């Protein structure tokens, strides 16, 4: 009787994986997953083994990392379950069928809880097992470590998911579902940025220096202080670490870990029956938008409207603009890496910093290419069903394409210039390398933006539900081509740049022959980039023309 609501989930999953041609894909994905698991196991085994072999401090550090890993995974699961939970419980399209049918709310709760748990946890479950399992051989644990792990990982993950769903039911009872989802989304982004920044700012590279362990453990202790004994992740990490170190099983903790999910299910069923319908009723109310926007300014030119449309579509979509936080964190860490480079301890630091500045052209290009894959590539497909407006208008596809290119070119150029300018400042770069890095990075940025837009037009998916869903094989092909192009530009530039910079550093001036070589490379790079961009743009514009 209870299995009836699972039918769409089970059949959808099996039809997806068993459809024609998917066997090979499933096998390849399985092999890839296995390879990742093995790599994670080996990496963790090696790192934990290294710490453990150092001293008493090494063991403490390993255990701290173990506890941190549990708490981090638990927090990740809580946040992702909350976001998914709002969607599956309140915003699912099939709610119109299921809620309109005589289905008991506790039954619906169990179905949504289990499917949300599977959706949000399967990847973390699969990939966390090899990480935690690697601690076993290092600490020479007993035979029960793996069974304990296999029981506690799903139980703890289920607890995280159930707690998140309970919280969601209460939140949506108080606030509209879409607003709740947005708030949780921002909170989770902030949380992950916090984790990312704090991890980088801890300078994990110092771990190779045992003298700095003490300082590192202080850091770890400081950030893990809020992990109280009431957290299920702490119960699990305490249970497993006591077995790892002393081969002792705390059955009270084990019972607590296994019983908590059941208790949460009972509480959830009660909350569902009491609060769901009211929250669901509210979640369908599209009248929350009482906020009125200002009437638009009169703008005659089409390019201004296209710019405006792109900008407001971006700024009014919280999933899009909130990624600025992630980009901000990326930029901070990017620049921080240059700030903390131990150049003063390096022999020939001026040469090394110039070499790094040259490599930085590739790094900033890689960042531009990645961001273009996320933002520029899907921008034409994102026109979606509304693209007929452009196609049926008197605006030529080439003009539309050019306006789009200009729109994205400005922020990408600013970002590249900021990255190169500030990292050159940290590297104390002056002379020709400053200009070469500026030229190389800007040229690569302009070309990869053109490439992303062209590939996005050629492989546009106008039916994709959202921008992330429109990233198909075309995006992978774009990325491959963009990286190949960058490598060609960089490799052809190594020798002329090296000669010019070496001469400049030795003689404090420019050597004519070396300058001409660099000028030749600049010319070749310019022509090559222009040809690639032009060829792809023409193909992209053709793809936009009605077929």
């Amino acid at each position: 009787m209870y299995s009836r609501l699972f039918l769409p989930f089970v059949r959808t999953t099996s039809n997806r994986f068993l459809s024609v041609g998917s066997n090979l894909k499933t096998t390849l994905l399985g092999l890839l997953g296995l390879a990742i698991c093995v790599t994670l196991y080996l990496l963790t085994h090696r790192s934990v083994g290294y710490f453990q072999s150092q001293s008493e401090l090494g063991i403490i550090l390993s255990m701290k990392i173990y506890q941190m890993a549990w708490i981090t995974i638990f927090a990740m699961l809580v946040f992702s379950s909350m976001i998914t939970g709002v969607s599956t419980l309140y915003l699912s399209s099939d709610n119109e069928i299921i809620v309109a049918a005589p289905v008991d709310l506790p039954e619906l709760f169990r179905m949504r809880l289990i499917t949300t748990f599977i959706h949000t946890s399967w990847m973390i479950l699969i990939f966390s097992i090899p990480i935690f399992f690697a601690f076993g051989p290092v600490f020479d644990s007993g035979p029960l470590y793996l069974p304990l792990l296999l029981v506690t990982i799903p139980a703890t993950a289920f607890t995280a998911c159930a707690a998140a769903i309970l919280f969601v039911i209460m939140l949506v009872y108080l606030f509209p579902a879409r607003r709740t989802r947005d708030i949780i989304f921002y909170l989770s982004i902030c949380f992950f940025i916090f984790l990312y920044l704090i991890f980088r700012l801890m300078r994990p590279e110092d771990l190779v220096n045992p003298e700095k362990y003490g300082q590192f453990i202080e850091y770890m202790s400081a950030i893990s202080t809020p992990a109280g004994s009431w957290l299920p992740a702490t119960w699990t990490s305490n249970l497993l670490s006591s077995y790892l170190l002393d081969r002792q099983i705390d059955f009270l903790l084990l019972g607590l870990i296994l019983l908590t999910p059941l208790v949460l299910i009972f509480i959830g069923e009660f909350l569902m029956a009491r609060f769901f319908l009211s929250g669901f009723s509210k979640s369908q109310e599209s009248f929350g938008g009482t906020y009125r926007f200002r009437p638009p300014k009169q703008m005659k030119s089409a390019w201004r409207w296209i710019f405006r449309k792109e900008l407001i579509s971006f700024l009014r979509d919280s999933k899009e603009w909130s990624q600025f936080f992630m980009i901000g964190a990326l930029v901070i860490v990017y620049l921080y890496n240059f700030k903390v480079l131990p150049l003063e301890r390096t022999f020939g630091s001026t040469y090394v910093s110039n070499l790094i500045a040259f490599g930085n052209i590739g790094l900033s290009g890689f960042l531009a290419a990645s961001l273009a894959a996320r933002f520029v590539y899907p921008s034409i497909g994102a026109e979606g069903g509304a693209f007929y407006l452009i196609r049926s208008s008197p605006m030529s596809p080439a003009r539309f394409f050019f306006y789009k290119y200009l729109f994205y070119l400005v922020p990408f150029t600013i970002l590249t210039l900021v990255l190169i300018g500030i990292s050159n400042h940290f590297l104390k770069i002056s002379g020709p390398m400053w200009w070469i890095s500026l030229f190389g990075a800007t040229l690569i940025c302009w070309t990869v933006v053109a490439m992303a837009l062209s590939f996005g037009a050629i492989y546009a998916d106008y039916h994709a539900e959202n921008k992330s869903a429109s990233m198909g094989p075309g995006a992978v092909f774009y990325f491959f081509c963009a990286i190949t192009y960058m490598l060609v530009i960089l490799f052809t530039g190594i020798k002329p740049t090296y000669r010019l910079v070496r001469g400049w550093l030795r003689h404090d001036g420019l050597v004519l022959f070396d300058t001409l070589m660099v000028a030749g490379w600049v010319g070749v790079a310019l022509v090559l980039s222009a040809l690639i961009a032009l060829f792809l743009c023409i193909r992209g514009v053709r793809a936009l023309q009605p077929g």
Partner: protein
Amino acid sequence: MSEPILVTRQLSKQFDRFTAVNAIDLQIEQGEIFGFLGPNGAGKTTTIKMIAGLLQPTSGSLSICGQSMADSPMRCRQLTGYIPDRPFLYEKLTGAEYLSFIASLYPGSSTKQTLEGAERYLTLFDLHEWRNNLIESYSHGMRQKLIMSSIFMLDQPLIVVDEPMVGLDPKSAKIVKELFKTKAAEGTTIFLSTHSMEIAEELCSRLSIIAAGRIIASGTVQSLQEKAEHGAENLEDLFLQLTGAFELQDIIVALRKDSTKN
């Protein structure tokens, strides 16, 4: 006289400060095809969602076959089949799997019997050969026909339909109209929301017109035409008069003037 199938008393729904449905009273008898008309944003879909149990009324009451929606929501849902205007279908299920799933959601009659009924409708709608194909390969009309089959097979006393003919070819539309008539003759009550005056005129025994959340007229097509101020010739004229679209005449005159100027 048998008990009314659907009764609403002062049924209202408020979204923040906006009143979508304002104290509507309806009483619909067994075997009626009841038309629910209104301009865009009048409150039709909100009312339908309340009848289907998808929205909770802010105030007022609603009962189906004598069962109160507030007290026995499960029983009311058991008695009501709902066909939304933009129906959701699981893309990766086959048509047959989808029907089995829907049959399982409505216990009471035997699933086997229900699915036998489904076979009949699938054949009627030319969907039988497609029943084992994934829904993602269906056209818009085929999806509409599948969701109709899924509700007709349940044989419930009340069927609530929001815009039933969208995307249907003339043959399928004719079949649906005949099905509505047959079902009504067998005792099923059909609550039909539509923008098509022809369909309402052809099918509905009674109708209500809703505008700005209030019922502004109720009765048979004939009785409403008689009540109309300027002697409406058909339902469309009547609808336009009642929903304030009489300015339409002025707009048409102004447009014609503009075109002669140009």
